[in-house]
């Protein structure tokens, strides 16, 4: 009863603070609106064509076959390439300049003697002798996304051609894949993708600053000392305080859900049983981080510094705003040890937005582990400290 009663006082104090309302309710919504406005255009489907030069310096059966394949997939409305075919011409510096300037995304060269080479390779292979196939040269621009994407497509085309060729040469078992559609999901929606991220960000901010920094202020302003002088126990105090923040978390989630569902027509179902349970885990986990920060900081300033240090890497390398699977190895370790990574993946999974790339047990165990560690440090610190 005492916990419940006092949680209302703490809640009243928070809800009456304009800064609190701005940073922990208005700001996540503003962030959500901004991100949706900026990134939702990324989900518009547009056909991409790659410009490629095909330099054909051979006119045998194999090279004609290759050039025919490329010509066909460069025709019609569904064409992949804008093909420029050049025959019997030596590669010039100008072509490489075109590649560098982006006039073409890739240069494919079928060199002179390619057909002879292929025939020799097949003959040697049939005789059981070792032989290397003649090369087809592909020129791309390193670190250029379009060029590297075009290169991947070209490689796939050659893989498919190789397979067809092998199938004709030998008896190859081909497995038929039976496909059954068991359900359907609307196309990718950035609103759906960002919704769980914003929910996590708002809980994260409230945990880190709304709990971490405020409790540090309570410590610095000797408010905790004042509570310690009364018969209320530390546990009762912290439960009442946490409960007040819990009411706040519910308001935050309701506000974000309202914007997502009503204004942006998100398809998420926030009443999903798994989502609600996972949100509770997220709240416990990120609140314990706040208690931890307040317990290890001497005053509000140091709490603020610690919160900033924690906030940036955890927020931006937690997969909240964009996927973080392919970040460079030098920062990948932050992604791996970051509890937000697992919370973001887990929450998206529970909402059916995107399957978690991590096993289910990790999306539960990692946040639980952090909660345990943070809470035990905080409880120990608050137990031994003489508030001064």
């Amino acid at each position, binding site marked *: 009863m*005492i916990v419940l009663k006092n949680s209302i*006082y703490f809640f009243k104090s928070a809800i009456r603070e304009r800064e609190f309302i701005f940073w922990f309710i208005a700001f996540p919504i503003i962030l959500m609106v901004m991100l949706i406005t900026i990134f939702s255009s990324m989900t518009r489907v547009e056909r991409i064509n790659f410009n490629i030069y095909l330099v054909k310096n051979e006119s045998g059966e194999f090279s004609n076959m290759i050039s025919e394949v490329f010509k066909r997939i460069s025709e019609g409305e569904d064409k992949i390439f804008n093909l420029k075919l050049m025959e019997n011409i030596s590669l010039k510096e100008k072509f490489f300049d075109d590649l560098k300037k982006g006039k073409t995304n890739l240069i494919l060269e079928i060199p002179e003697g390619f057909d002879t080479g292929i025939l020799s390779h097949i003959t040697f292979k049939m005789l059981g002798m070792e032989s290397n196939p003649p090369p087809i040269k592909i020129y791309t621009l390193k670190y250029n996304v379009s060029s590297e994407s075009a290169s991947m497509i070209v490689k796939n085309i050659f893989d498919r051609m190789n397979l067809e060729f092998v199938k004709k040469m030998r008896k190859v078992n081909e497995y038929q894949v039976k496909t059954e559609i068991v359900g359907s999901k609307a196309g990718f929606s950035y609103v759906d993708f960002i919704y769980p991220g914003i929910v996590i960000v708002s809980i994260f901010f409230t945990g880190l600053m709304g709990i971490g920094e405020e409790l540090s202020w309570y410590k610095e302003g000797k408010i905790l000392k004042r509570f310690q002088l009364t018969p209320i126990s530390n546990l009762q105090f912290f439960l009442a305080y946490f409960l007040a923040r819990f009411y706040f978390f519910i308001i935050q989630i309701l506000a974000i859900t309202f914007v997502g569902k009503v204004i942006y027509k998100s398809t998420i179902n926030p009443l999903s049983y798994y989502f609600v349970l996972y949100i509770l885990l997220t709240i416990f986990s990120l609140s314990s981080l706040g208690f931890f920060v307040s317990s290890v900081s001497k005053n509000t300033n140091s709490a603020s510094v610690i919160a900033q240090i924690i906030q940036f890497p955890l927020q931006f390398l937690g997969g909240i705003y964009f996927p973080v699977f392919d970040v460079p190895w030098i920062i990948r370790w932050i992604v791996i040890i970051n509890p937000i990574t697992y919370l973001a993946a887990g929450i998206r999974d529970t909402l059916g937005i995107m399957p978690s790339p991590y096993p289910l047990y990790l999306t539960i165990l990692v946040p639980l582990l952090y909660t345990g560690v943070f809470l035990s440090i905080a409880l120990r610190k608050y137990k031994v400290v003489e508030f001064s």
Partner: protein
Amino acid sequence: MNNYKFIVEVEDLRKTYGNVKAVDGVNFKIKKGSIFTLLGPNGAGKTTTLEIIEGLRIPDGGNIKIFGKEVKRIGKEEKELIGVSLQETQLISHLTVKETLSMFRSFYKKGLKVDDILEFINLKDKAKSPVDKLSGGQKQRLAIGLALVNDPELLFLDEPTTGLDPQARRSIWDLLLQLKKQGKTIVLTTHYMEEAEFLADWVCIMDYGKIIREGTPEDLIKSIGGESVIEVDVEENHSFLDRLKELGVNYTYNPKHGRLLAKTDNVLETIDSILKTARECSLKVRNEIIRQPNLEDVFLTLTGRQLREE
């Protein structure tokens, strides 16, 4: 629990922080229904002593008996019977005065009605004001109100008037005298000698973690001798001061403020000696004051320093 003469008994209390002995073997006893004052400059160890008794700090050594019961650190039972007002008053922002009192009232099994407390601390018209909109004096009265929510037998007030204007200070003194009339025991720390003189039944003067003298304010003042004190501003001059000593003037000189204080039973003779000697040494004497001795003089006599020098 009620069969005791002294509500608090402290014996050989010790607390050290690194090399600093904050409390160095403190002993005292507090009579029920009295106003007991710890008087001393900043850093004398008053707050640490109080916080050990209140259970906020763990002593390195010594014994504490509170409400007739020996305790290492006070528990819930004792907390129900004490009220504390801390040195600095920070409260939960955005709660109103009434909400703050109600919140603290809810921590105790029994206590006073919030409206009665508001009336007593004279903040009824501010009941709905947020605590961060109160003036310094109003905040301090609220702090005393918070210490009273459980109708405690024993009140600890740590420098309750520091930083307040004379009028606000006076209104706090009135509150404390009313509480004394109600039979409450008040433990007060202060570095204002006039506060101790006005309120205290018993004064312990603390310096560097030790109690250097204790008694009633009257006895302490009498103990330094002299019916009057003469204060004058005069430049520091060794031959002048040596000559006064030769003439038998009982004085202390503060070179920082250029102020000479002389205790005497014969005002006319002493002032004549001071003026004559100053003239002989070609010194000008200004701002002459003749007054009764006070606790400040006691502290000065005992330590050679003034209470608020630091």
